[in-house]
């Protein structure tokens, strides 16, 4: 080719090739999107002034820059132009106004977009910003796991307005994930799983093998996961467990108990009911389910062990939530007799509780398995090392899909959430030789846990953005009162400040300001049902009078709230304490839809018939002013009462006194009901 022609051609190609990038630039999609927004705004604007704002818009990259928040730059608003524009409510994406949540749309300058939604904030093209390509470094949070964004800043277990996240965190704690996996903030986590020391005296080899094969099949309330063990593994582990020596005092207690005469099954049945065992345990599907199911309890443990355990559960498992009931020896024998008569698996083989004859070789192999599967993480014994058995979970929510090992799972989409969901439902399906056991989570739990996992960031958000709700002081008195509290395991159900369980709806943090001492003493000795609709009730633990008095005195002294007035009527005109006016309010506000006075009203709230006997007027008044202040999940609505109205209502309620002849329900009456 002649040189001139070549020169002309190559010069033209040179020009053309150099022009590509600027042309590409001029055609970047955000420009046409901004033009569309302008058109849409002009069409939707209702005033000339509003329209002129749209007309004057320049096409330019928009960004939210938050230097204090990891120097975050979010350019999402380059396309999502209407996120805080009320004109764009209900407009088609990408222009729609952000749906209202706690932080939006008012707080964009403080939080930006990627803090909650993730994605690549710097990007100005859709695919890059949303991270839609499979190996994207910053994929957006899928809508199903949106609440994981809340968990980045909100690090408490329960997060208001993030139900899925809260459920996920609670489920993780309950399933004991933190026993094997290290997670920031859960360094002190200890599993409630029982130690093994007494297993040889408790149950039989056949039962243990059944249990190891699938704990949930034996007890639907089981928290222990399924380790998917082979038959040989099970035999070896069982041998190991039975080779562990039982501490002599426990063995002696079990032996003595098994030698005791049989009890009265009918008495035991009554006692079982009034002790409110199903507040925690389940029988025939009834009960809270936070403790083992008792349907086949007599097939799970020997009679001697049951008697010895109920007498002193804390000796067998120092961490158990079960209170030590003050039953008489005969009471316990009766209870266990009832178990043996009715709560047993009649189809179970006879030898299910026969102790296992230990083969030391198998036991040694079992010991290896025990260590290999990290059983010691939950069942604390001598093995426990300093470190968590499983991999750390901190930062799991920031893992890139490309850094994950999908192993054999070729069926999964290459995303972090799909990987996590599969890990949770079938942990061993990724490769051979994995150790994580199978938990039987339902889809709702799985979604919640993945949400919680995705909220675990590698680095915590900077200080002003990290939110941990203030901890309430949670003092538990030491000394004799402390012993009583420990013996009856009050903390298993009641909250003391930020500590304690959530089975009871009555936190004890300010109980002293709430109830009268005398009522409290009688209640502790013989609890009555306050909210008939609730299945969880205070069990009758046969607390003795001196114990009850000590406890009540401590509560009246320590557990008070200074903001609750002793006498709300002090210094107020008499008209403010007019019970007549209060009674009228009671009717017009519709209180009776939930509360009973006398014989009429709903069963949802506690009956108010004996208000004066039970409650202090200062509490009633403080409660009426703002029920949610005392417990965020109180169902009683805040009526927004004026001070005077609250006082009048209090005055009316304080006129209600329990009839002097009111029957203090005896055990027989209650159980007959």
């Amino acid at each position, binding site marked *: 080719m002649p*040189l001139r022609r070549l*020169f002309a051609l190559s010069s033209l190609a040179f020009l053309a*090739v*150099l022009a590509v990038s600027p042309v590409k630039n001029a055609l970047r999609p955000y420009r046409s999107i901004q033009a569309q927004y302008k058109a849409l705004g002009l069409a939707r604007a209702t005033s000339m002034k509003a329209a002129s704002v749209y007309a004057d818009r320049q096409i330019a990259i928009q960004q939210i820059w938050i230097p204090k928040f990891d120097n975050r730059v979010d350019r999402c608003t380059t396309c999502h132009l209407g996120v805080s524009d009320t004109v764009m409510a209900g407009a088609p994406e990408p222009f729609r106004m952000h749906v209202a949540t706690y932080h939006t749309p008012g707080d964009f300058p403080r939080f930006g977009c990627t803090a909650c939604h993730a994605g690549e904030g710097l990007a100005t093209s859709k695919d890059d910003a949303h991270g839609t390509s499979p190996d994207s470094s910053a994929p957006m949070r899928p809508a199903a796991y949106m609440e994981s964004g809340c968990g980045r800043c909100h690090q408490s277990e329960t997060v208001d307005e993030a139900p899925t996240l809260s459920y996920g965190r609670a489920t993780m704690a309950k399933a004991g994930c933190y026993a094997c996996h290290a997670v920031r903030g859960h360094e002190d986590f200890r599993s409630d799983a029982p130690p093994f020391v007494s297993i040889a005296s408790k149950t039989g080899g056949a039962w243990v093998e059944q249990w190891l094969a699938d704990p949930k099949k034996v007890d639907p309330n089981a928290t222990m996961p399924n380790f998917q063990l082979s038959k040989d593994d099970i035999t070896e582990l069982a041998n190991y467990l039975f080779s562990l020596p039982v501490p002599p005092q426990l063995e002696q207690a079990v032996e003595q108990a098994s030698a005791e005469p049989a009890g009265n099954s009918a008495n035991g049945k009554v006692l079982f009911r009034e002790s409110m065992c199903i507040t925690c345990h389940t029988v025939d599907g009834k009960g809270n389910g936070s403790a083992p199911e008792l349907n086949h309890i007599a097939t799970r443990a020997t009679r001697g062990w049951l008697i010895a355990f109920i007498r002193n559960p804390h000796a067998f498992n120092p961490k158990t939530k079960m209170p030590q009931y003050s039953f008489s020896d005969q009471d316990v024998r009766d209870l266990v007799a009832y178990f043996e008569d009715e709560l047993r698996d009649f189809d179970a083989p006879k030898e299910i509780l026969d102790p296992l004859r230990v083969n030391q070789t198998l036991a040694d192999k079992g010991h290896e398995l025990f260590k290999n599967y990290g059983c010691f993480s939950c069942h604390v014994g001598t093995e426990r090392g300093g470190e968590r058995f499983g991999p750390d979970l901190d930062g799991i929510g920031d893992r890139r899909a*490309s850094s994950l090992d*999908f192993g054999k799972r070729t069926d999964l989409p290459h995303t972090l959430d799909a990987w996590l969901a599969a890990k949770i439902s079938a942990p061993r399906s990724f490769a051979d030789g994995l150790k994580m056991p199978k938990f039987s989570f339902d889809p709702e739990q799985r979604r919640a846990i993945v949400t919680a996992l995705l909220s675990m960031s590698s680095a915590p958000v900077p200080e002003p953005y990290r939110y941990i709700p203030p901890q309430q002081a949670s003092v538990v008195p030491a000394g004799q009162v402390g012993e009583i509290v420990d013996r009856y395991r009050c903390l298993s159900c009641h909250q003391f400040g930020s500590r304690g369980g959530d089975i009871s709806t009555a936190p004890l943090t300010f109980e002293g300001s709430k109830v009268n001492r005398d009522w409290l003493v009688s209640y502790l000795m013989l609890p009555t049902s306050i909210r008939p609709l609730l299945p969880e009730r205070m069990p009758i633990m046969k607390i003795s009078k001196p114990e009850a008095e000590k406890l009540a005195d401590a509560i009246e002294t320590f557990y008070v709230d200074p903001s609750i007035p002793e006498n709300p009527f002090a210094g107020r005109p008499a008209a403010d304490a007019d019970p007549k006016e209060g009674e009228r309010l009671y009717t017009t506000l519709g209180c009776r839809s939930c509360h009973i006075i006398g014989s009429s009203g709903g069963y949802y709230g506690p009956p108010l018939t004996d208000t004066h006997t039970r409650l202090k007027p200062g509490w009633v008044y403080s409660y009426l002013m703002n029920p949610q202040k005392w417990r965020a999940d109180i169902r009683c609505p805040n009526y927004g009462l004026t001070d005077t109205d609250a006082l009048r209502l209090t005055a009316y309620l304080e006129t209600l006194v329990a009839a002097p002849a009111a029957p203090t329900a005896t055990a027989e009456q209650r159980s007959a009901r």
Partner: protein
Amino acid sequence: MSAPIELIESNDPVAVPWRVALMRRDSRPAVRESDEKYVMTFPHLIVREIIMFQLVVIGLSLAAIFFDAPLESIANPVETPNPAKAPWYFLGLQELLHYFPPVVAGVLMPALVVIGLVVIPYARVNLEAGPLWATHSRGKLASLTLVVLALSLLFGAFSCWPIVIPTLIIGAAMLAARNGEQASPWRRALWRVTLPEWIMTWFVVIAALLTIIGVFFRGPGWSWVWPWEQFRA
């Protein structure tokens, strides 16, 4: 050349455009008459240079338009990607590190290569090189065979096959070139190759082979993979 020199004196350089050079008889430069054709640099060379530059830019721009420069996630000192590969021109070196102790592969060998390259124009063998087998002697044959075998054994001891195999092949080719002056054109071409060219070819083949292996055939943990096998970082 013994005619007397005629001298013309003048003060007008325009009128008398002669230059005079005096030199000693024994110091005349040897001027070789050349029939080489010369052309004007502008435009002949300059236009070609411009076109060459444009073609380079066009090629690079096309590459830049269709292939993005790699950018992985931000550096994370605690997470090593697997495999951690250096840029391609160092992968030969990295491949060597797979076989030899670091001090050998990382320092000794590169240093030898650089020194070798620097001394090339000062080595007599490079300047006078005639075909390797232009002169033969039994000694040359024996020492060559010895060197090839010694090198093969040395690298074989480290099971560094990407060096051993080319060494043996090139050694075989060298021997095949022997007495090739009158043989087939193919062998004649081989016969013409000089010793330095043999050595350089040996080096280039090995370097290219190591680099190609490093770039295309190494996966996680520097294990062997086929380029068509998918591996995940």
